């Protein structure tokens, strides 16, 4: 299948039209999305109008942009003006945003064609896309298994060839974990690199929008398009976005790579651990200097995350009160009764659980013991990463502890589901970039992803290492674990 870079080049040079490219992808969706349910909504008509506009620009001799005619799937927590944006929640069913997210505007300016809105765990809370009010998404490699989450619809859409590119959001691993489980590339950029304007908030100090793609180069091109300062997001970094795609192809000779001690031992499936060792060996063979590095406080990152993220979520989700948009239950005697009944009817079980956990962690008497402590652990993690990056340029670990698991396997025990995020949440707590790159298969022939992490704004170096891992993955034999 053609990459996004190849498709855009074909549309720009006139060897293909955006409309042809779009129709091919819509045809694949028509064949298989009934089974996979990657999309909450396919916006075929609007996409045809956008594709025809790209073709018209190319026909007039104008440059339609770096993503000319490339279909892009959007996680359904990114606001699209006049197009339903649900967060896969009943509380927002039917709501049409009155504005576009900044990333949506930037995609349009780059000539990309939005093909639809993808399924997610409700309000991006989950690691399997089973917490959607509209039903789960299935893994294209094995439809009896989950695609990961929360951006499972976006990961599945790229893996199934429904779109060459997709956007997701990553609060604790919600791009990288499904990318790993679906065998595609997923990137969580440096906090502040991509505007969050129009991303419906989950945990504001952790959320970041990022790309899904079938190749490292495609991911780099998409990140270049969406990155950069935005005055509408007060946490957007006011500095030029780094050049990424042009930095590829330089190899990894002399690059210092640290394998994270705390993320390679207990709790990691043997096949996944073996693939991570092979990725380290491949980087070494390509000229990198590989050593083991300890980031001790990562041991506490899961606990800290599951206090901080729900605390921020409980505050962010206070806005769903039945007053200004979305669901309102009828029959309430007064406004307080309406709030409680509307929120009870509109939120699903995982969202309620996190609102409860976050409200508890922030409530009088428990704040210091839980939320306050978690914020201090966050400081330890930032310090330990800083120490690690004095020794190495990038860090390597598995992306997830296991390959894709069967639907329903972890829904009864929230804590077992939360453990999926153990390798990914450190980067969110520190605000650092990280990427998951497919690296062969593990148990059951299912995809394995390895993660490369870098210090803030270290994307260019991170992509170089990712490119080397991607190249080595082309020559992998099936994994054997004794």
């Amino acid at each position, binding site marked *: 299948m053609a990459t996004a870079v190849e498709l855009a080049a074909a549309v720009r040079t006139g060897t293909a039209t955006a409309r042809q490219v779009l129709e091919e992808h819509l045809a694949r969706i028509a064949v298989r999305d009934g089974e996979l349910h990657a999309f909450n909504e396919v916006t075929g008509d609007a996409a045809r109008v956008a594709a025809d506009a790209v073709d018209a620009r190319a026909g007039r001799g104008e440059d339609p942009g770096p993503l000319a005619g490339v279909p892009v799937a959007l996680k359904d927590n990114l606001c699209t003006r006049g197009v339903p944006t649900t967060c896969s929640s009943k509380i927002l069913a039917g709501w*049409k945003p*009155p504005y576009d997210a900044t990333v949506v505007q930037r995609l349009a300016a780059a000539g990309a064609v939005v093909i639809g809105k993808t399924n997610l765990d409700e309000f991006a809370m989950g690691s399997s896309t089973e917490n959607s009010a509209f039903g789960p998404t299935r893994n294209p490699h094995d439809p009896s298994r989950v695609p990961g989450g929360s951006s499972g619809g976006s990961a599945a859409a790229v893996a199934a060839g429904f779109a060459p590119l997709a956007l997701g959001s990553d609060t604790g691993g919600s791009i990288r974990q499904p990318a790993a489980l679906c065998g595609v590339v997923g990137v969580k950029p440096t906090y502040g690199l991509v505007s969050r304007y129009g991303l419906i908030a989950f945990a504001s100090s952790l959320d970041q929008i990022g790309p899904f793609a079938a190749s490292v180069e495609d991911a780099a091109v998409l990140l270049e398009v969406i990155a950069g300062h935005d005055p509408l997001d007060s946490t957007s970094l006011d500095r030029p976005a780094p050049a990424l795609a042009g930095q590829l192809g330089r190899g990894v000779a002399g690059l210092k790579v640290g394998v994270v001690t705390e993320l390679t031992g207990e709790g990691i499936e043997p096949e996944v651990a073996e693939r991570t060792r092979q990725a380290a060996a491949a980087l070494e063979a390509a000229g990198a200097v590989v050593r083991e590095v300890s980031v001790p406080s990562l041991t506490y990152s899961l606990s800290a995350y599951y206090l901080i993220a729900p605390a921020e979520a409980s505050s962010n989700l206070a806005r769903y009160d039945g007053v*200004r948009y979305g669901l309102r239950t009828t029959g309430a005697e007064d406004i307080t009764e309406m709030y*409680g009944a509307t929120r009870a009817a509109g939120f699903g079980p995982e969202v*309620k659980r996190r609102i409860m956990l976050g*409200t508890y962690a922030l409530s009088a008497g428990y704040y210091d013991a*839980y939320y306050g402590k978690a*914020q201090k652990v966050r*400081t330890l993690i930032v310090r330990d990463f800083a120490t690690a990056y004095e020794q190495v340029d990038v860090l390597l670990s598995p992306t997830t502890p296991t390959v894709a698991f069967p639907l329903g396997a972890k829904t009864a025990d929230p804590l077992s589901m939360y453990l999926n995020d153990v390798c990914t949440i450190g980067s969110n707590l520190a605000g650092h970039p990280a990427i998951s790159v497919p690296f062969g298969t593990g148990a059951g022939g299912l995809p394995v992803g390895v993660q490369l992490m870098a210090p803030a704004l270290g994307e260019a170096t991170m992509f170089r290492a990712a490119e080397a891992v991607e190249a080595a993955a082309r020559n992998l034999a099936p994994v054997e674990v004794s």
Partner: protein
Amino acid sequence: MSERLSPEVVAHVAQLARLDLTDDELALYTGQLAAVLEHAADVEALDLSDVPPTAHPLSLVNVLRADVVRPCLDREEVLAMAPAVEDHRFRVPRIMSEPSAQPSSPPRVPTSGPPGDQNRALPLGTDH
């Protein structure tokens, strides 16, 4: 199991969160929240008295802009998505409780609307 997490505490938290829970949900969440907090006991046990907290990955500063009128959201487009609207404002159920009939009750706080007005409008904002 965290000793602090009784069903009564969970019910109080649900009330703080404006979230009506059924008895079954109350029982389920009491157990599940206890399990998560038990996992967080490793954090609770750390001595971090000398460590400053990190609330955010960036050193946040106030971001200001010139106080000039610029395009904003279309008012009708916004109101079209509201569950109930009246006079270009969001309409909500009654905000104040009915006064108690007992003579010993404290004086009723004056309200702007007539008694029985169950859906007083909440101002959206100030007109230019």
